[in-house]
């Protein structure tokens, strides 16, 4: 069982857990990505997420299918939120259930790592000073050349 979505509303975490849990599952994992107040030493006030929604939806689905191929019987629900988020808001939720804990834990890690690597979603961080910056993970520790 797989469901993936790009959403423009708050993620209902409890609903995701209910959705993946079944009488056959004995282990459920939940990964949440939340907006934190500091990044690269700068105080963050919020993040604006945008996506190439059509492709992001397809890519999320492909990642979930790949995870299921590794471990048949997985139940996976992934939601990624876009729009303007405040500190502590949930940006991504990955709920995974399986009969056993190891496949559920492994799949949760696999999904978030692949999501960060290949799903076309971007974030613009807003800082307390009033400026903003598109986050570029490939820039690593390089200094920001433009705001």
């Amino acid at each position, binding site marked *: 069982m797989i469901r993936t979505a790009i959403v423009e509303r708050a993620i209902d975490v409890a609903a995701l857990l209910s959705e993946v849990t079944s009488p056959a599952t004995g282990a459920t994992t939940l990964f949440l*990505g939340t907006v934190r107040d500091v990044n690269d030493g700068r105080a963050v006030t919020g993040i604006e*997420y*945008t*996506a*190439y929604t*059509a*492709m*992001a939806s*397809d*890519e999320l689905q492909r990642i979930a299918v790949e995870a299921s191929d590794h471990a048949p019987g997985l139940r996976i629900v992934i939601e*990624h939120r876009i729009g303007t988020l405040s500190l502590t808001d949930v*940006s*991504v939720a990955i709920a995974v259930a399986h009969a056993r804990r190891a496949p559920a834990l492994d799949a949760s890690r696999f999904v*978030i790592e692949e*999501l*960060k*690597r*290949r*799903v*076309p*979603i*971007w*974030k*613009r961080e807003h800082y307390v000073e009033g400026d903003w910056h*598109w*986050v*570029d*993970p*490939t*820039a690593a520790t390089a200094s920001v050349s433009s705001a």
Partner: protein
Amino acid sequence: MTQLQVLLFASYADAFGASQVTVSVAEPATVSTLVDALRALPGGDVLPATPLVAVDRRFTRGEAVPVRAGQEIALIPPVAGG
């Protein structure tokens, strides 16, 4: 020449000042010749050496991949989801 429409997002949309551009590329067009044409546009100097290009909602692999009008072509900035 063929006219290719290209979707732009995030920092690339800001750089080009549009969410979509149309470029003329000699046939047969490839990811490489498409990127060269995009690089020549105002704002195109922000592109890295080999920017990510998606065709019909899948990442392309390699600069020799052919592209043609009618496909959904997108230039993908470094992704930052999560």
